[in-house]
């Protein structure tokens, strides 16, 4: 039987690739027998959902998490684009 620590590593890995059959079975067995590891598994899945949501929220029109270009940087980039436009014309 694998330890909780090994199980935790396998859980993380399983989010990045399909585990080979042996490891998958070992992990499943462990999750059935262990009280605490299923909690960690839920935490990892929660984390995955949350990160997906986080990037989406961040790209929304309504600034969230309220980030926008500062005024002077905006002007600087505008000038760079205009200069680029002129030189390419």
């Amino acid at each position, binding site marked *: 039987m694998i330890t909780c620590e090994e199980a*935790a590593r396998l859980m993380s890995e399983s989010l990045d690739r399909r585990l080979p059959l042996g490891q998958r079975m070992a992990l499943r067995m462990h999750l059935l027998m262990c009280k605490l590891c299923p909690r960690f598994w839920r935490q990892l899945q929660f984390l995955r959902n949350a990160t997906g949501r986080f*990037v989406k929220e961040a*790209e929304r029109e309504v600034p969230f*998490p309220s980030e926008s*270009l500062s005024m002077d940087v905006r002007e600087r980039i505008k000038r760079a684009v205009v200069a680029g436009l002129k030189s390419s014309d």
Partner: protein
Amino acid sequence: MRWVVPDTTPYGGFLILTMEFNLFISSGVLLMYNCPKWRGAVKEEQQDLRPDMWVQDHGDLLFRYAVVRLRDRVAAEEVVQETFLAALKGREQFKGRASERTWLVGILKHKIIDYFRKRSREIPVTALPSSEDSPEDIFDNNGKWKTEPGAWGDDPANVLEKKEFWKTFKECMGGLPGRLADVFSLREFEGLGSEEIRNLMNVSTTNLNVLLYRARVRLARCLDTNWFRTGQKEGEK
């Protein structure tokens, strides 16, 4: 049409009807295509680029896209500017099939990945990965949990609706050491596969697994301590 369907078949009438219907539809399509008004509508989809409006129309969105991934305002400003300049140079390649914004985001993605690659080269390989403070102490020597992972309630997904939660989430992300955060960001935010990340960041499979594992353990612990345990005690948060 009589030669197609012999009169003896019971479906004759039906088939002829279908054929006539097809003819009706295709002539309709032809008519629509030749009508200048409809052609105009089709053409309008192939919009033109408006570089003079880029910063105003897409600047903030591109910036947010970049800052969430790179976690560095100055770096994000840099890649946004590079994106616009690259887009300007590559204007000819814009086919008008995608929207201007989608096209710009595509270029930005490449710029962000370039930036990650550049940044990973600046960190000496020897600084890997043991120095990135190991969270393995959540287990004892026998590989059993030393710090019990929290149960996180019946439906932790509920907290995703709370603004306060995202503040904590951001703080926890900010607490990750640079390299862990970069790898995590490429995997979870940019959605790259292991192989791409390994090539990009120049790490082995084992190292990548360890880095991702540590990032996740740290984030989970941080949310556990700073959100789920405190939040549940205070009731509403």
